[in-house]
Each structure stands twice: as C-alpha cells, then as structure tokens.
C-alpha cells in the first residue's frame, strides 16, 4: 500500500464528517431565529444592578433546590423537597403563565457538598432563585457562592444563629431563611424548665451535629443564668443505638430533667431507654423540633407519653396546613418525614410572591427578572401569610415567625401518631 492511498482514505471520511457537521450546524442556524428572537425592537428596558434573567415566552422559570437528599440526613432534605414540590403543584406548575422548572442538587449535609451544589447552581444562568440549604454547615460555604452569581437563596431548615447574625458579612447578603433561629428555641426550653416546671437539676445530651450542640449550649447558658444546676452535659454519636450506658452515667447526677435536642433516631432510643435505667424513671424529658414529628412516636413508642417538645407554634399552622398534609399523603403515600416541609413550602411561596412582584413582561412576551430587585423584594417580605405563620423578613434575612411553644405528648398522640396541636406552654 502506498502512502498516498493510506492518507487518502481518512481524508475522504473526514470530508464526510465535515459535511455532516456543516449540515447539522446549518440546521441549527436555520431554525435559530425561531428559538431566539432578535433583540426586542420596542423601547422596553429593564435595569438591575447585578443582572437580569430573561425568560423567553414558553421558557421555564428555573428554580433550584440544594438539599441533602442522599446520605444520613436525607429525610430532612427529602422532606423539604416535597414541601417545594407541593408548593409548585399548588401554583399549578406555573408562575405568571410560565412553567416552573425545578432542579434538585444533593448537598449531603456537609460543607463540601454544599459548596459543590452551590457552585453548580451558580454556574447555571437560567436559575432565578434557590431554595436551601438543608444543613447550616452547607450554607456557610454555599450561600456566598450563590450570591456572587446574584442568586438569592431561602433556606427552610438552617437554624444556626451566625447565618443571620449582624456580623455575618456582606457575602451573605443574598441569604434568607424561613426556619427559626436556634437562639430562640434553646432559650424557650430553658425558661420552660426553670419557670414552669421549676426544676433545679438538669442533664443534657447532644449528638455532635452543629444543630444539636448549639441548642444545648444555648439551653445550658440560659438555664444557668436562671439559677439552675447542670448535672452533666453528655454527647453521643448520631449512629449510636445503645444509650443505656450514657443514661446510667447521667443517673448518677440525679437530674430532674433531661434535655436532648437531637434527631428522631437518637431521640427515640433515648426516650425508650430512659425508662429502663434505674434512677431515671421519674425525670422530665424534653426534645426540640428536630424530632417533633409523627415518626418520633413510631421510634419512641409509649415511652414518649408525657414528654415535652419545643417547636413552632402549631396554632399558627392554620387550615392550609391540613390540606397540605392531605396533598402530601396523596402524593407520597405517607406523612411528612421531618419538620421543615412547611417551611420549605413557605420559602417557595415567598420566592414566587417576590418574583411576581419584580418580574416584568416585555411586549414580545419575554419575562425580565432583576436579581437585585428579587433579593430586595424578598427582604421586604412583610406579613406574608404562610403555613408556618406570618412571615416578615428582617434586615439579616430571618423571615421566620419565631413563636416557639412547648408541647406535651399525650397517650392519644402516640396511639394515633399525630403531633399535639395545642401548646402546653407559651413564653409570650
């Protein structure tokens, strides 16, 4: 075979490929005008300090979620995701006549996952706004990345105080949340124990998660300030199942009250096993909203009767919440998995409301949404009637209606697997 022929064959094939390529490109260009109309000729103008999302007629309004939907904290994230999905369904999947497109990125409840998911969202210029994150540790690196891209994010379940503290820094300017701040909840629990139950000796347990550790720290500080004694501050791992040894240790301090703001699995184990440890048969038990869910009754069984929970005031969860639960049952075949579904619903709804407020339609039907304007509109949310109460956002993005009440579980609650709906005690 000679050299010319050897080179010749590929050349022919190459020509074929080039031809095809040109054809495809031609097709693309030919139909491009249909997909991308030329610049609007009218005098329509829309300005925004950071940027504008333009949505062509028929194109979707793209919302992204960054939730922990895989891994150990998946129930929290999936719960929130369902809240968002129901909110979109309630709007008929449409906003201002444009279809809503939802993308969910997994964060895995760790900072590196939060950073990656946020970067992915930030790199997609079609995304109008984000909902998330699930865990506070994800929001710390993630929220600044989103805001650098001009994307505002509303978290349904971050409770760490520093995310909305005045010291948080300008890089968090695009961050809001509908979840309540840990500072409020931990203090309510301590006041309840000291003022209402008048207990003096208390032990606490946390599970090493930032949420749990923070809550018990706030509790301990407030409780000591009110003149109480902390007999011991214990910690377990979220994967632990045998709590009897640590409870036996707690029993040696003879506490009257045990506060354990942990999640459902660990909470269930502690609640059940407290009764099995000598010396702790009569203590008061109290948890927080991380396990205020019907699933907790499954986990704890009858041992949960009589125990206390701090949680958002459900009397504010008006009639809308009941129909939400019905939709949830129909769509997912069960009750909500965790506590922040309603907060996620509200987060979605305040974003929709803000979009409706700032979006402008050009004469050719293109929708313009200003990013700074959207952020400002969200921060200006005031008196919004949501499922979790009346939402008003403050200057640092705390939008929750932080009315935390204390609930007591009755035998009937456990039997029917429904949460108590009347607060046992309110601090206000």
């Amino acid at each position: 075979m000679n050299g010319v022929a050897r080179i010749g064959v590929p050349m022919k094939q190459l020509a074929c490929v080039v031809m095809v390529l040109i054809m495809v490109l031609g097709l693309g260009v030919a139909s491009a005008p249909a997909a991308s109309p030329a610049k609007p000729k009218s005098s329509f103008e829309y300005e925004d300090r950071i940027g504008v999302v333009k949505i062509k007629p028929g194109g979707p309004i793209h919302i992204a979620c960054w939730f922990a939907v895989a891994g150990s904290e998946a129930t929290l994230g999936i719960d929130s995701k369902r809240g968002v999905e129901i909110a979109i369904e309630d709007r008929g999947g449409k906003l201002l006549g444009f279809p809503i497109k939802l993308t969910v990125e997994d964060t895995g409840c760790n900072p590196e996952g939060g950073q990656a998911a946020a970067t992915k969202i930030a790199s997609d210029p079609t995304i109008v706004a984000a909902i998330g994150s699930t865990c506070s540790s994800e929001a710390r690196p993630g929220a600044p990345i989103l805001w650098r891209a001009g994307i505002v994010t509303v978290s349904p379940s971050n409770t760490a105080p520093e995310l909305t503290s005045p010291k948080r820094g300008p890089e968090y300017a695009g961050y809001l949340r509908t979840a309540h701040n840990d500072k409020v909840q931990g203090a309510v629990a301590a006041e309840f124990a000291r003022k209402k139950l008048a207990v003096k000796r208390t032990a606490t347990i946390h599970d090493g998660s930032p949420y749990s550790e923070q809550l018990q720290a706030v509790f301990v500080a407030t409780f000591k300030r009110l003149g109480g004694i902390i007999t011991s501050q214990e910690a377990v791992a979220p994967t632990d199942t045998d709590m009897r040894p640590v409870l036996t240790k707690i029993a040696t301090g003879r506490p009257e009250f045990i506060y354990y703001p942990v999640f459902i699995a660990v909470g269930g184990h502690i609640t059940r096993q407290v009764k099995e440890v000598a010396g702790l048969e009569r203590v008061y038990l109290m948890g927080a909203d991380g396990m205020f869910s019907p699933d907790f009754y499954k986990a704890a069984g009858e041992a949960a009767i009589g125990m206390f929970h701090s949680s958002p005031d459900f009397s504010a969860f008006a009639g809308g919440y009941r129909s939400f639960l019905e939709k949830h049952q129909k769509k997912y075949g069960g009750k909500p998995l965790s506590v922040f579904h309603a907060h996620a619903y509200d987060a979605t709804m305040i974003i929709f409301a803000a979009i409706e407020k700032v979006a402008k339609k050009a004469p050719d039907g293109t929708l313009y949404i200003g990013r700074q304007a959207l952020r400002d509109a969200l921060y200006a949310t005031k008196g919004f009637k949501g499922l979790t109460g009346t939402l008003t956002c403050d200057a640092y993005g705390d939008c929750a209606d932080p009315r935390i009440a204390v609930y007591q579980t009755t035998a009937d609650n456990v039997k029917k697997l429904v949460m108590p709906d009347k607060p046992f005690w309110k601090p206000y």
Partner: protein
Amino acid sequence: MRQGIKIGLIGGIIEVLLALVGMVEAFSQRYIISDVISMGQTLLLVVAMFTGYLAAKRTNRSEPLWVLANSLISGLIIGGLLSLLVILGSMVRLRAVFINASPDLFKLLTFNQGIGTGILLLLIFGTLSSSLSGLLFLSPSLLRGVLIRSLAGVAMAGLLQDLLRAIFAPWGPIAEINQWFFPINGLTVQGAVSLFILIAAISYFWRKSGSKMKTSLRRLPPTNQRVLRITSSFLLAVILLALPQILGLFLSEVLTIVGLFVLLGLGLNIVVGFAGLLDLGYVAFFAIGAYTVAVLTSPELGFLNLSFWGALPFAIVAGVVSGILLGIPVLKMRGDYLAIATLGFGEIIRILVLSDFLRPWLGGAQGIAKIPRPSIGSVEFATPQQIYYLILAGCLLAGFISWRLRDSRLGRAWMAVREDEDVAQAMGINLVAAKLLAFATGAGFSALSGAIFASKLGSVYPHSFSVMISINILCLIIVGGMGSIPGVIVGAIALVGLPELLREFAEYRLLVYGAALVAMMILRPEGLWPEAKRRQELHREEAPEIESASGAASGK
C-alpha cells in the same frame, strides 16, 4: 432457549427492581427527547435491549433464527414480569411495603392505558426492544458498532443536558446551538436525529480509519515522532492551564474536587499501591492537614492567625509526623489487622476533633470557620477557577515525586515488600524504614490535600472526615489500577468527577455508584489504567492459585 429464559428472568427482575426502587418514576419527568421518551423509559429500554443483546450473544451465532428467538423470549419474559408487577399492584396495596409502588408508577408502566391494554403494550415493548437488539447483534460489526455508539451518544447527551447547558451558557453562538438541541427539557426531535447522524458519521470514520491513522503515526520517522511528542505534551500543558477558563465555574469546581482526590489518591497509592500496606484510615491525615491549617489561621480561635502559606508547612509536617507515629504501632501488623488498626486511627482522629473535650482548641461540632483563602500578593485564590491552579501545582508536585520514587531504590524496596514481606526482609531490605517512609510520604500528600481543602471551603467540620472518604480513595486507586499513577487520575475522574457531575440524580447516585463498582471490578479487575507490569501478571496467570504473587496489598 434456556439461556434466553434465564437471561430474560434476570433482566426482568432488574427491571422490576428499577421500578420498585423508584428510579423509573423519579426520572419520568426528565426527558431525553422532549415529550417523546423520558429518562425513566430510557432506563427500562436500555435494560431490555441489553438483556436481549446478552441473550443473543449467548446463542450460537451461526443460527440467526435461534439468536432472534432467544432475544425475543428474553424480551417477552421482561414484559411478562413487568406485567406481573402491574397485575399484583392492581390487586394488593403494594405500597404498604414498597414505598415507591405508587399509582403514578403503574400509570407509567401501563403507558397510561389501563391494565388490559397496558399489559399488551408492555409485552410488545419487551419483545420489540429485545428483538431489536437481537437484530443489532446479527448485523455486521461495523454497522453494529456505529449504531450502538450513536444510540449511547444520544442517551448520554440527554442525560447530561443540564451540564451541557451550563458549560455552553457563556459561549454566545454555541449556547444558541445548544439551546436549539435542548430547549427546555430534553433534546428536540430534530436535535436527536442530527446528533445521531453526527455521532454515527464520526464513529464510522473512526472505525474505518482510526487504526490506520495510528499505524501511520507509528511509522513516522523518529525525529518526527519526537517533535510530535513534544508538541503534544506542550499542547497538554496549555490545555491543563487553560482548562478552568474553558470549562466555566461549575466544571472547574468539579475539577478542583477531582484534583483534591487525585492528590489523596497519589498518597494512598504509595502506601497501598507501592508498598502494599492496606490503610483504611487514610482520611486521618487529610483531617490533620485541614485542621492544622484551620487552627493556625482562623481568627475565630485566634491562636496564631497565620496566612495560608505560613500554616502550610506546619500542616505537611504534622501529616508526616503523624504518619510515622501511626506507622510505629502497626509495623508488625499485616493485611486485615493493619486495615482495621488504621481504620480505627481514622475514626479516633474524627472523634477527637468532634469531641466536646477538645472543643476549646478544635472547635468541636461547630467546626472552625473563617479560614482565610490563600493569596499571592494581591491575587486571592477564591473561586474554583483560581484554586484549580493551586491544586494543579500540588498534583504535579505529588505526581512528580511519586513517579521519581517509583523507579528509585526505595520504590523497588516498596514493591518487594508488597510482593512478599518475608522475602523482602531476607533480601536485606529495611522493612521498618520502608514502611515508615511509605506512611510518611502518603500522609504528607494527604495533609497537603487537606490544607488546600480547608482553605478552599473556608471552614472545616468533623463530619467531612468520615471513614467513607478513606473508602472512596481506596476504591479510586483500585478502580484506576493499583500502583499506577495515571490510574489514580482516571479513577478519580470516574469515581469522584462523574458522581459530582450527576449531582441532581442524588437519591440514586450511590445506588448506581455501588453497582458500577461491582461491575467495573468484575469486568476489569486490573483497573481502568493498570500499571504495565501488573497487567502482564494478571494476563499471564489467568487462573492461578488463590494466594498468588498478586496477594499484593495485604502482604500475604
């Protein structure tokens, strides 16, 4: 015949499983081709076609009728099993046990047609898709290859649509073309067809003349070859440097994550791949590197407030020293004893940084935040595109060191220890020094990676250093090819990069990851890019005794 039934049953069970774990329904709203075929349907189709193909492959090729019959039967069985699921679902409330057996799923499975017609359609779907792949199997190999590639290409494009959209977004005209292919959700029909033709043409060209091009390259005179090599490595360098600018924000982020894992993988590759010491607690040094930087730099704790560059040497020294400290107690342990002792070490470090006991110094559950980013002069490494260069430098350094070490005296000593400790000792190799140096070098790379990780995130939490990281790194070096330096890179791309790209499939990511690990190891036990020597070994002794020389990592 029997093969057809057997394979059909396996395929059918897989399909039913896919339906019951919820993958079919979850992906039914995402389209590969807009409003024509969803990802969920594609999933069912791919499994059915693969089953049909396998059934055909197991039949004697010279009897085309039998081949067809076998694939047809396997498809019929798939359709039958899915119909069975549908019938069962209509009779009992499957959802009480299987949470994903929702009415929506059955609607999907019956093509929204009610049970009777639905089952008929299911049977037709099964037989049609599998006999199609039977036909595909019978067709001439050139045609088959081209068809399979184009189909797979279209499916991949549909799968990665969000990613493509994100990549091309900043590139005006290309973005427009991309927009034409994927307007909202999935490919357009025209887009799919033209993509199909495009890939078909390219792969036809490649199949026809790819090998010829290779041979003609190989026949070039030596000087030309050298020029070619230099140009190509120059090109590679340029590409490596320009990569983040080309790829945009998100892919650069993925690159940085992959880079961190390459760095970790290179380190573990020395310990496991070169010296054969099975270390399951490798994350410990990653944590030590990250926490050293965090403690020394973060104003939150306020100990020293060093800059990143000031803290970096301390981090690496801390890593190396702890590598040696861990190494000493485990010197005499072998194989799985070593594995569990190191795993324990990794857990101890994680528990200590989490503990309330050390909270005043290490931040406890709240981690350490406000870690400054590295900067040179006034240039700050803040975005992934900038941090990429830092990580690239680290990887190049680690790669260079590994490469030099591998062929050094020490490297040969490690290999000898890996193959047989007792013999190595008898040959006069200083076991203690060899092992401790392996631990120390590996730990140093890991600490470097951890230091960059901490400043990239700006905060460290104990939860980032779980045993899963160690396991993931181990998987990537073995999937890449144990002991092979390019293998580490390939492994990191496959096991860290790909899952990162498919983040939106979160709920099923790990399921697929697990299945892929099993499949990859069964199909390519030597890894994706094995060390040349190891490949020879594996292929020379196809069925050796169990404790052959490849006993490797656990030191026999």
